């Protein structure tokens, strides 16, 4: 969690120093995103879990084992950025070897796409892989969210799909009350006969347990589940709103540090040392990334069409 936070802070610093054009990310979601990454069945193909994440999922990627320097590369839009080769904004991950489907800027389309990977997993006999799809609260107003509820819950054709809403109560500048008439988004799942739950997404012990139960349910029952986690948005929507610190919302990293201190599991000194170590590591990495090659103008045509079917196992 701390490393994910330090990574986001470094990305914001890079943005402010001119080493990137735009920042968007997940400070305030680490208590949810990190446990998610720790709990998924990581791998390639229908036997493992597919992840349709959003642009606040850096904690999940780090927990999966991603190199944080790769996020710096995407921020700096270098040719070495393994997620998009300098083509996309920060936080737009893509890792086929771990079933991390490309993160998109259009909000909520991942809820329509997730139906397809879940259907492939439903058909695979004996497979235990599930599809995990995540978006924010504002995005649930899009039709794709309703699409996922309808398609995943059809009687006799239920899909092994964990739908996650991380609710930070904002859609850029629009408040939760400004767009939702219902109290909780998870309520909507009840009409479709699926288990639902609302949890405190700022407490990693709560999220770990709840995610474990939800994943287990979907994995064994092969049916959908809707989980809503209340989280914070600690740096605003993106760099477009300044990416400045928001003091009014709970900070899950602070809260967890306090808890660990109170329980005598870590001292303040140890925590500070860890933070200093991660900060130094990423500060040095950011300097190195600055020297890495930028994509060439001629590369704009690369990867328009595939010659072989990579997703079909050809190489």
């Amino acid at each position, binding site marked *: 969690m701390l490393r994910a936070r330090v990574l986001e802070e470094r990305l914001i610093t890079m943005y402010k120093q001119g080493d990137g054009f735009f920042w968007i990310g997940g400070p305030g979601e680490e208590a949810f995103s990190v446990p998610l990454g720790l709990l998924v069945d990581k791998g390639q*193909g*229908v036997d493992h879990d*597919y992840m349709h994440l959003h642009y606040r999922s850096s904690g999940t990627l780090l927990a999966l084992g991603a190199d944080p320097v790769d996020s710096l590369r995407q921020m700096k839009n270098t040719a070495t*950025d*393994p*997620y*998009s*080769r300098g*083509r*996309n904004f920060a936080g*737009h991950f*893509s*890792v*086929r070897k771990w079933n991390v*489907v*490309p993160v*998109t800027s*259009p909000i909520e*389309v991942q*809820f*329509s*796409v*997730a*139906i*397809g*990977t*879940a*259907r*492939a*997993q439903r*058909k695979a006999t004996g497979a235990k892989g599930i*599809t995990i799809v995540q978006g924010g609260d504002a995005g649930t107003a899009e*039709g*794709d969210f309703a*699409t996922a509820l*309808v*398609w995943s819950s*059809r009687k006799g054709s239920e899909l092994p799909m964990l739908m996650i809403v991380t609710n930070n109560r904002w859609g850029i500048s629009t408040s939760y009350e400004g767009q939702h008439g219902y109290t909780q988004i998870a309520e909507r799942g009840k009409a479709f006969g699926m288990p639902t739950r609302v949890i405190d997404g700022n407490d990693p012990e709560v999220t770990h347990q709840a995610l474990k139960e939800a994943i287990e349910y979907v994995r064994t029952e092969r049916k959908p589940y809707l989980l809503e986690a209340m989280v914070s948005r600690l740096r605003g929507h993106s760099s477009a709103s300044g990416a400045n610190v928001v003091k009014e919302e709970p900070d899950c990293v602070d809260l967890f540090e306090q808890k660990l201190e109170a329980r005598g599991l870590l001292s303040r000194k140890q925590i500070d040392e860890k933070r200093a170590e991660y900060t130094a590591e990423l500060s040095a990495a950011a300097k190195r990334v600055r020297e890495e090659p930028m994509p060439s103008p001629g590369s704009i045509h*690369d*990867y*328009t*069409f*595939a*010659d*072989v*079917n*990579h*997703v*079909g*196992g*050809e190489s």
Partner: protein
Amino acid sequence: MATMIQAIRLALHVGEKRHGVTDIFGQDVGPPLGGVFTGTQGLETAWNTPLDERGIVGTAIGLALAGQRPVGEIQFCDYAFNTIDLLKLAGNTYWASGGDWNVPLVLMTPVGAGIRGAPYHSHSFDATATRIPGWKIVMPSNPLDAYGLMLSAIRDPNPVFFLMPKALLRMKARPGEQLPGEPDEKTLNQMIDAPLGDRSAWKPRWPELEDLFTPIGKARVAREGDRVTVITYGRNVAMSLAAADELAADEGFQTEVIDLRSLHPYDWEAIVASVRKTTRVVCVNEDTEITNFGEHLIRRIVDELFYELHAPPKLIAGAHIPLIGLADNLEMASVPQKGGIKAAILDLARHEA
């Protein structure tokens, strides 16, 4: 002789049996109906979806990413417009992920006018499709090409639009254009067409057909000529051929008709060869005329072949109006007809260089 819709159904069957097709789906695509145009009757992997085009396109993308071979259908292209951002996503995922995830899917949808389909069963989609990079786009004009292009689309590792000219779906193949291994017409109908009424106990008997892969990106010279070139596709191919035949009989000159078959990638070499020969060219298609695909072809022809032209290129396209009206007169006046094509060819032929 198989009709175009039978040829498509046969290609989908061959796709299921031999080329890894895992899912054929859309509204009313599965049993009992098997498609509003019968295109998916009796297919093993056909299934019905909710009435939700966004779900259909999203599912196709997801299945493709999971290593499946999906063929999705939008019942009429008129209803594909609410899926545009998902169509963009299918077309840009390979690029945006820097070559990480390709998206092998086929999306088929009936397009165009000709059946008195009124405002919302008459739209064209070719101009819109060509505005979505990352897709290959094919549009057959006869059953044989429908069969061969569908099999190529199924095997392609990229998203492919398979645009079905709905006015031609019941059109039979011409002599000499039967599908490889196709039985006689009566036998074929008995084998693969579902009976009317209760068909719960019906099962198709599939003929043994051979593979045919009509290359995507390769045009067909549908008629050779030396005086004027018509570049067209889909429904307007037969119309252009008839216009050319009549002009040959009445005026004594020969018109070349290029059936593009693929809109992207398109066969520029075939266009260049024909335009060099005739020096006069008209593009014909049904989509609305402003920002029409034919306009692109004309722009490129003017850019690259200007000094070889002996007449200003022409575009015969749909009127730039909001919709196509139902009444005979309205539909006929809204999209190209044989008379208009003929007049344009004649005008080009008579133009003094």
